[in-house]
Every structure is written in structure tokens, then in C-alpha cells.
């Protein structure tokens, strides 16, 4: 059998991003996520065709996915979209940063006759627990939604990615969202399927059955589990309002748990870098108006933040810089992407060598000589040219993505980027804006910081905040198997966590508070449905540049409780239980 040694990179694709906003327990999800993009030459060498099955193996395990040709990948590099199939083979080691190896994993690919596991199978394999299906009678339909005032909602906030576009126009008629303007593919998917995979009532898992319970019972049960646990984990928060996150901190300190948000494997390393060196940053409006040089490093906005280019960056019309023609775009990545195709300069860096390249750039800016002819696979002349472009820009901006925070040196990559940007400010004005992922993940960091001093991964087991990524980060805690109960709020570890971490989560009492029946909900011992901020609930979120914005609601769902109310009641219950204890 032919085998190919490769490097595995995972990441977002537009289709996968849109699909998780629609429905997850479908064949469609498998079609967009159980894929392996390969260079056509590699495929020839391996003797596989478009759509054949291959088995990808890493130190963490192996998974069968379908091959798809992609010329943009250099040889020896495969790309698998984020999702449970990728998670099956992501090593859960984090180099003490909380960030597992989403990128640069040594892997080998071989053709296989085995079938691609279905979504249920792969979740079962990753977690070791049987995912359950919600009986149809508990599912909501569009008829369960009401609207208080029909009409057109302008300037509506899109609560998906951290672009937090606030120019959506929603038309609401006859208790339904009938039309959406200015939406991207992901947004469209979300607003069209707001009623899909929504559950009417809290559900409890009894064996392999789901039993409906009331919200009050759910609150009692949750309080009991959390108070009884010795080291509970409260994870999620990034796709709900800041109001909920505040209550999350309160709950965590009352039950003596750990509170962590999605930043832990998104831009947590960026936040750690800010702790180390600070940052020079700017709001996106300022960038749109003035930036004549944009560097996209390890990010691909067309896939992850579909309207970023149009609204804020590459293609946006600004006050001084009128559009694409007035701007220079540099893209740094390990593979060609949608973003690299529109770039003036594409710098292909060797996987895992971003730190070296950033250091070399800093050396040029500071006037030091580079002895090597090539750094990180990039010739010296190109590095000098790139540094020249950065120094001679009137206003530059660097957008680091997961390609920088999840590879090799993680937070140290970002530290190098921040030092570079700080040094560039001696020559010109330069800023750095991390491409935060979920719509309120930046808000979580803000809320946690003002309540506890630390931005994420906060251990409140002693009643006061402590923090150390690598020890108190979710993935590390789960891999070491140190938590004994978990509550997941508004996030889907089933789709994000490496299998090794998910396995421990499935073993302990697991409460899931989420508007949708997600992959993690299917493993939960207790599932509590809530409302979606921006559709049937409202709340504050922070854009990737920490711009606070308020999402309004357009529909009403009467039998659901929103997570803020749920958490308020839960906190009261926890206080009651604790008061009884003492």
C-alpha cells in the first residue's frame, strides 16, 4: 500500500462554517467537513482520485475522510476542515498554552476501502458515549416563534463571527423572518435556519433515553451537580451575550469551578501575547479609512469572516483610502487561499516557522543583518522587500489568524508580531488586530478581565481568581482528567475539542446550555435549551476590535428561557443550596 508522510493543517472553510449554523446531524455536514484537501500531485503519487476514501493517521489516532484536490496546497501538506473528523486526529497536547495542535501535525495518508464514519459514528468514536437524537415531538418548528412587531429591522447585528456586522436588514412578517439583506453565506444560513435543531424543553438523559423535564427541575439538578462537584468546569460563553458571561463568573466563584471561554483555542495565545508585551491596535473603522497596507497572516477572511474584506479591510471603501486599488495587500500563509489570490504579495512560509519569519522582519526593521539566505523558506530579498513595504506604508495593519496562534510557538508568534508592530511605529503608524473567531469571544475576555483580572481560563476553586494557561485551560484540564463535572454554555466542544479531551468530558456529569441541539448536547446528561441572541434574545457583544455593540431581538419564543434568566435563577438556587450546607 502506498503511504505518504504529510503535515496536517486544519481550518475553517466557508461551506463548513455555513453548515454548522444550519444543521449538524446531517449528511451535508459530513460532505463539507469529512474532507481532506491535497495537492493533485500528491494524489497521483498516492494513487487516489477525487472523492476516494483515505485514512489519515497521526499520533492521536486515525480517521477516514474523502479526498479533494486543491492546487493551492504545497506538496506534503493536507488540509482538513474543522469538525469532529479532524478532531479525531488532533493531538491534545498544548505546549501549556491551552491550544491543541490544530496545525502542523505530522500525519500519514493512505488509500483505504473503509467508509467515512457518519456524524453519529464519529462523535461516538471521539467521545466514547452514544450521541442521542431528539425525538421529533420535542423539536421546535417555525410555528413556535412569534413576533411582537412586524416590519423591517435595520442595522441588525449579525451574531456569528467577530466581524459583528451591524448593517443587516431583516424583514419580519407573519411570525417569520422572511427576508435578509446584506448577509454573508454563514449569516444567511443562520437566519434562515433559526428554527432548526431547536428543542422545546430541557431534556435529561436516562440511559440512552431523553426525558423531558421542566426548567425548574433542570435548575435544581444543575445546582446540585455543580455544588457537589469538587472541581467543575464552566466552559463556552463565546456565542452568548456579555450579560450571560458576567453571571457565568459569578456562578463559577460560587461553585468553586473553572471558567473558560472559546478563546482558549482561538486567540487565547494572542491575549497571552498582549499580557506579555501589550499591543498596538485600532478599531476597524480607522483601518478601513486609513490603512494602505494590510498583512493577513495565517488567516483567510473569505472563509472565516466572509464580510471582513468588504466591510473593513481589503476591498472596503474608506475615507482616505478609497478601495482595493489604493491598498497593498500581503498574505502570509502555508498554503494558497482565497485571500492569497487577491494579494499583491503572497509569502509562502514553511509550516511552523512563522516565528522565524517574524523575527527576520523585526531584524530588518531594526537594521540588523540577516546571515541566512533564506528564513522559513522565504528568500532574504523577499523578507527585505516585505519589511520595506511595511515601513513605507502610511498606515499599516497586521491581521493575525489561527495560522499564527495555533502553530508551533503559538503565543510567542504573536509576541513576535506585536514587537514587530511596535517597532514599525517608529517609522509609520502600524496596528495589529487579531482575527477573533466567534462573535463574542473578545467580549468574554473583556468581561472576565474586569471581573477577575484575567481574560480566560480562570480557576476560582479557592473562591478567588487564579490563572495559568497550560494548567487552568480547558483542554489541559480535560486531558489530565482533573475536572469532575462540566457545564457547557453556548458552545459546541463536540465540534471543536480533540477526541482525547472530549472523552473525559463524556465521562463526567455534563450539562449543556445551548440554543441548539449541538453535537455536545447529544452527549449531555442534562440539556437546557435557551434563546439565540440576535434572534429571540438580546445582549451585548464585542467585535474583534473590542467594539461593544448591542444585538436586538426580532422574534419571541414563549416557552424558552434565555440563558441570562436561567443563570440568574441557577445562581439563586446555588446560593440556597450552599446556605443550607453551612
Amino acid at each position, binding site marked *: 500500500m502506498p503511504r505518504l508522510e504529510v503535515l496536517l493543517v486544519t481550518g475553517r472553510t466557508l461551506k463548513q462554517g455555513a453548515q454548522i449554523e444550519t444543521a449538524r446531524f446531517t449528511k451535508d455536514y459530513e460532505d463539507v467537513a469529512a474532507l481532506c484537501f491535497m495537492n493533485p500531485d500528491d494524489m497521483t503519487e498516492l494513487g487516489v482520485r477525487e472523492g476516494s476514501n483515505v485514512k489519515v493517521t497521526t499520533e492521536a489516532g486515525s480517521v477516514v475522510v474523502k479526498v479533494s484536490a486543491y492546487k493551492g496546497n504545497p506538496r506534503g501538506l493536507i488540509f482538513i476542515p474543522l469538525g469532529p473528523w479532524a478532531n479525531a486526529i488532533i493531538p491534545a497536547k498544548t505546549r501549556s498554552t491551552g491550544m491543541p495542535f490544530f496545525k502542523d501535525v505530522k500525519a500519514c495518508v493512505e488509500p483505504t476501502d473503509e467508509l467515512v464514519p457518519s456524524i453519529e459514528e464519529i462523535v461516538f468514536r471521539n467521545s466514547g458515549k452514544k450521541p442521542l437524537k431528539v425525538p421529533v415531538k420535542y423539536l421546535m418548528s417555525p410555528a413556535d416563534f412569534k413576533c411582537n412587531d412586524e416590519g423591517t429591522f*435595520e*442595522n441588525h*447585528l449579525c451574531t456569528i463571527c467577530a466581524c459583528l456586522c*451591524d*448593517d443587516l436588514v431583516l424583514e419580519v412578517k407573519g411570525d417569520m423572518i422572511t427576508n435578509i439583506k446584506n448577509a454573508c453565506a454563514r449569516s444567511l444560513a443562520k437566519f434562515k435556519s433559526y428554527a432548526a435543531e431547536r428543542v422545546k424543553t430541557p431534556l435529561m438523559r436516562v440511559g440512552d433515553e431523553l426525558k423531558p423535564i421542566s426548567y425548574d427541575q433542570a435548575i435544581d439538578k444543575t445546582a446540585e451537580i455543580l455544588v457537589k462537584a469538587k472541581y467543575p468546569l464552566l466552559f463556552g460563553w463565546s456565542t452568548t451575550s*456579555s450579560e450571560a458571561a*458576567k453571571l457565568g463568573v459569578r456562578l463559577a*466563584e*460560587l461553585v468553586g469551578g473553572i471558567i473558560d471561554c472559546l478563546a482558549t483555542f482561538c486567540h487565547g495565545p494572542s*491575549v497571552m501575547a*498582549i*499580557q*506579555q*508585551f*501589550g*499591543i*498596538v*491596535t*485600532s*478599531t*476597524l*473603522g*480607522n483601518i*478601513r*479609512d*486609513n490603512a494602505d497596507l494590510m498583512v493577513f497572516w495565517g488567516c483567510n477572511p473569505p472563509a472565516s469572516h466572509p464580510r471582513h474584506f468588504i*466591510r*473593513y479591510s481589503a476591498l472596503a471603501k474608506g*475615507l*482616505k483610502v478609497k478601495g482595493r486599488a489604493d491598498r497593498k495587500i500581503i498574505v502570509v500563509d502555508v498554503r494558497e487561499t482565497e485571500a492569497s489570490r487577491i494579494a499583491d504579495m503572497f509569502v509562502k512560509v514553511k509550516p511552523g516557522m512563522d516565528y522565524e519569519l517574524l523575527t527576520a522582519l523585526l531584524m530588518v526593521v531594526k537594521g540588523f543583518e540577516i546571515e541566512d539566505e533564506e528564513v522559513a523558506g522565504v528568500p532574504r530579498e523577499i523578507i527585505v522587500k516585505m519589511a520595506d513595504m511595511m515601513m513605507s506604508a502610511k*498606515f499599516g495593519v497586521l491581521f493575525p489568524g489561527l495560522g499564527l496562534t495555533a502553530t508551533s510557538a503559538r503565543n510567542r508568534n504573536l509576541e513576535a508580531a506585536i514587537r514587530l508592530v*511596535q517597532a514599525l*511605529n517608529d517609522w509609520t*503608524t502600524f*496596528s495589529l488586530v487579531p482575527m477573533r473567531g466567534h462573535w463574542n469571544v473578545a467580549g468574554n*475576555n*473583556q*468581561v472576565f*478581565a*474586569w*471581573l*477577575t*483580572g*484575567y481574560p480566560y481560563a480562570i480557576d*476560582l476553586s*479557592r*473562591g*478567588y*481568581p487564579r*490563572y495559568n494557561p497550560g494548567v487552568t485551560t480547558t483542554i489541559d484540564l480535560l486531558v489530565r482528567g482533573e475536572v469532575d463535572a462540566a457545564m457547557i454554555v453556548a458552545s459546541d466542544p463536540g465540534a471543536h475539542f480533540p477526541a482525547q479531551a472530549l472523552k473525559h468530558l463524556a465521562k463526567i456529569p455534563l450539562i449543556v446550555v445551548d440554543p441548539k441541539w449541538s453535537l455536545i448536547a447529544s452527549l449531555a446528561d442534562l440539556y437546557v435549551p435557551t434563546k439565540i441572541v440576535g434572534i429571540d434574545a438580546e445582549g*451585548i457583544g*464585542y467585535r474583534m476590535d*473590542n*467594539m*461593544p*455593540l*448591542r444585538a436586538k431581538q426580532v422574534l419571541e419564543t414563549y416557552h424558552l428561557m434565555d440563558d441570562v434568566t436561567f443563570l440568574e435563577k441557577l445562581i439563586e438556587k446555588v*446560593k440556597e443550596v*450552599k*446556605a443550607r450546607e453551612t
Partner: protein
Amino acid sequence: MKHEPIMIKGGYIIDPLNKVNCEVMDIGVLDGKIVDPSTIEGKARVIDAKGKLVMPGGIDLHTHIAGPKFNAGRIMSPYDHRRAWIKATLDGWSGVGLTVPSTTFIGYRYAQMGWTTIVEPATPPIKTRHTHEELDATPIVDKACFPLFGNSRIVMEFVSKNDIEGLKAYVAWVLKSVKGYAIKIVNPGVAEPTWWNRYVGLDLDDQLPDFGITPRDIVRALCRASLELKIPHQIHVHCNRLGFPGNYVTTLRTMDCVSDLYKGDRPIIHITHVQFTGYAGTSWANLASGGEEIAKYLNSHDHVTLDLGQVVFGDALTMTADAPFEFVLFHILMGKWHCTMTESEATAGVVPYSYRKNNYVNTVQWCIGLDVALLTKDPWKVVFATDNPNAGRFTKYPLALSWLVSKKAREEVMKKVNRRALKHVALPSIDREYTLYDVAVVTRAGPAKILGLERHKGHLGVGADADIAIYNLNPVEVDVSRDYRAFVEAFRRTYHTIKSGVIVVKEGNVVRPEFYGATYYVDATKLVDPNVYERTVKYLKEVFPQYYSVSFNNYVIEDRELRNPVKVEVG
């Protein structure tokens, strides 16, 4: 607000706004207000304040406690949070931090010292929703915030067109929309987000490119707008060239540039953290105190008030909307540096700093604040503050105040500081000591008056808000000038703090951690010509998509987003 009546019996009252100096009186409290004690006699819970000092609750009109840059400071200082913490209880939140504490810790500690009203002095309007979220999370104390106007593109446009009416409408709209209290001006014109690192050190009369105006024009226009809108607190100015040797001249010129607008009633300009803008000398090597000149100007002019920005030795964290200054400071220290450009409005910076006693510059800085405070004859023109956490953290107020009340306390410090520096300042030759009455003026009555809150705050007369601090200090028996340690000890933790008629601190411990105060904001739209207002709002709606990346509607903060908003309506 219905609460049980309280009677504070037999304390020594210091209440400068009512000209009460150390008299033994009873104070009655009912439903959050101060009432005639005879009306609640017998029904009230009695606090025995015999031999204790009773003052109105402290007011801090310039303390960075909330908002995007303070939170940036928090994120940058994990080392700071390991030094102090409190545990969560069933009704109290946990907290951490010394220089940049978490919100709850800020509220508790201010209350424990007897301060009941605090003001965040700089918030970029567009991110004020964040500031209010933090203020709402700050327990016990009353709050307000000053939005930044001095580097706003829209303000500069109005100024360059000399359209004061339009500017007034804009200011009134912003204050109402983002729930701000007064106009804050920081390094006018220079810290604009697109050129903040290009014109570092620009002076009051230097031309700003793009608009053909000078910082002077901005200050004057905003001062006029503020006066005509009758905003309770005058313009709050952080001068140009802050942190540059020789800048006291700029400060004097800034004070003077609006003197002709003074009508003889209320002061019209407030110069903030004057210590940072009171440097004489030509370089860091020969830095000297400009405090004497500033005090001289203050003694002969009534249109100015100022706060000190008093330095306290030890760790601090500089944070300001004056990004050019932080840019310079970063290049001196080469450590951490946070800088945020906020579209069309402001640029802020954060750099950790530490004041050292043996350092020449730091010693001069320490003296300047005291020079100004002690040489200014009228304490009503001076507000005590450390520009927390820029020059020192607010928890050091008792110590810093002791330097005002006791020459002995100052001399103790002067023994340990840089000797050479003491030759370039006035402090060693100053004998003046503040009385406790003066202390009450610079920490309570004065700031209340300057904020325009003197009807309800800063005094203990009938009808005032029942914000009261009772200190374990017998002002008759203890000579604070000699026994300054007793003063520090007493002010560190109150005997009782009462906020809005509720006992929130007992013997130094917070007993009502879940109590939340109000947030004040100003609505001055009534004083704008309705036609001009309409025209301005229409204009703003037009330019918004160009100047901002958020829509006009989402910029506006509604009343219901705040926990306890209190509208101060003028006109």
C-alpha cells in the same frame, strides 16, 4: 428608596459646604437622604459616633476605574493580580489586583476608605457602552464618566468651520447618546487616531494639519459649548505636551486661553493631573517644579480649578487617551505598551510604570503635586487625586493626604528621596499644613462643587444624599500634624460608610457588597436650538457611514442598558 432610619449621634462634623467645622452634631438619615434628626428621633438605629470624625462621602472626580483602556491595563497586568485578592461570599464577589483591580474590588475599596462617588474621566464615546458595563459592575459607589471630545474628527470639523451652534448640538447629542457627564479634552488635536505618533509634543498654538486649526481653537470652542450648554462640570482638560519638560508654560497658556470667557460665577476650565503638566526645566536632567508658577496663577485667577495627579512612590500603571505621551514613555522603558486607535475619536495608551524614591525625575514629580496643593491659597480650587492609577493607586490616598496635613510626614519621605531633586522644587521650604477642614474641601466639598453636584453631594445638610463617612479619628484630641500615622490609619478604613442611607461598611468591612449606586449623565439637548439640533443629527446620520464602522442607531446607548441611570437635565 426605603430604608431603616439611621441616627449618627455625637460625632465631630466637618461639612465645608455648610461651613461646619468640627462641631458636635447629630445627623439623621431617612430613605437615602439626610433629614432633620428630630424627625426620626427614637425610631432610628443609632450609630454612636462620639469622638469620631464625620464627613460627607469622598468624591474622586478623576480616577481611571473603568472602560476599554483600564481593562487593557488589567489584561496586561496578571502579575499585579497575584498580589491581592478577596474571596467570593454568598453575596459578595471575589476580586483581585492592586494597581488595576477588578471592578468589584474598586467599589469595595473606595467604600472602605469612605469615598462614595467616583468619576471615570476618559472614555471614547463609541466604546462607552463598555465603560458603562464596567461602571455597572462597580458596587456601592455612584459613578459618572467623561467622554473624550478633544481629538474627535467631528469636533475638529465644527471648530474649523467655526460652527459653535453645531458643536453644541453635537456635544449635547453625544452626552445624551453615550450617557456622559462632561467634556473631556486630552492633548487636544494631537492624539487624533490617524496622526497620534506624528506630531508628538505639539504645542497649544501649533497648526494641526488637515483642519488648519490649533489646539487652542479646540479648547476655546469646547469651552464655549460647555458654558452655553450649562454642563454642570466645566471642560476637563489634559493639556498639550503632557510629560514634556518645560510644559508648565503650555499649562499656564491653556488656563489663560479661555480666561476671557469667564463671567465671574463658576470656574470654566478644570486642568487635570497638573503634576504631569507642571514641569519646569528643559530636559529630564534638569527637570524642576513649575508648581509655584501654577499656584501663583491660580491664586490670581478664579476661572480655573485643577486636580493634582499626586505621585505616590511604588508601582503604577500609566493609562491615558494621550497616546503620543505613552509612545514616548514606551521608548524610555521598552517594556509593555498598549495602544488603541479608536476611529474618528481618540487614541489611548497604557504603559506600566514604577515611581522610585531614589530617582531624580520621580522625586521632582512627587514634589510638584504637593507644591501646587500647598502654595495655592484657596483649597476650593484644588482637588485631591492621584489620577489613579497613573501617578499612584487610589488605595494610597490616606498616605498621600497625610503629606498635605503633616509637614512631618513629608519630611519623613524627603529623607529617603533623591537629594538633588529637592533643590529644584519648592516643597522643602513650605510650612503650610492642611487642616482636616481643608482635607474635607479637597476631597469632598470642592469636587462636589466643581462637578456641579453640590446640591446633593459633598455635604451633610438636610436634603443631601446620605453619603457619609465616619472615621475613627478624634479631631480634637489627635493632632494630625504630629500624629499623621493615626490619620493614615483612620482614613484607610472607615468606622462606618453610609451610601444612600445604607450602612455599606462597618468597622472597615464591607457589609452590603451587593449594593449598587447610580450613574449620572447629562442631558443638555434642551439648550440647543431645535432646528440646529435636527440639522446636526441629520448631518451626523449622513457622515456616520464614512466616519464610523458601526451604524448610527447602534452607537446610541439606551437608558435601560444602565443599571441605575440618573439623568441630570439642564436648561
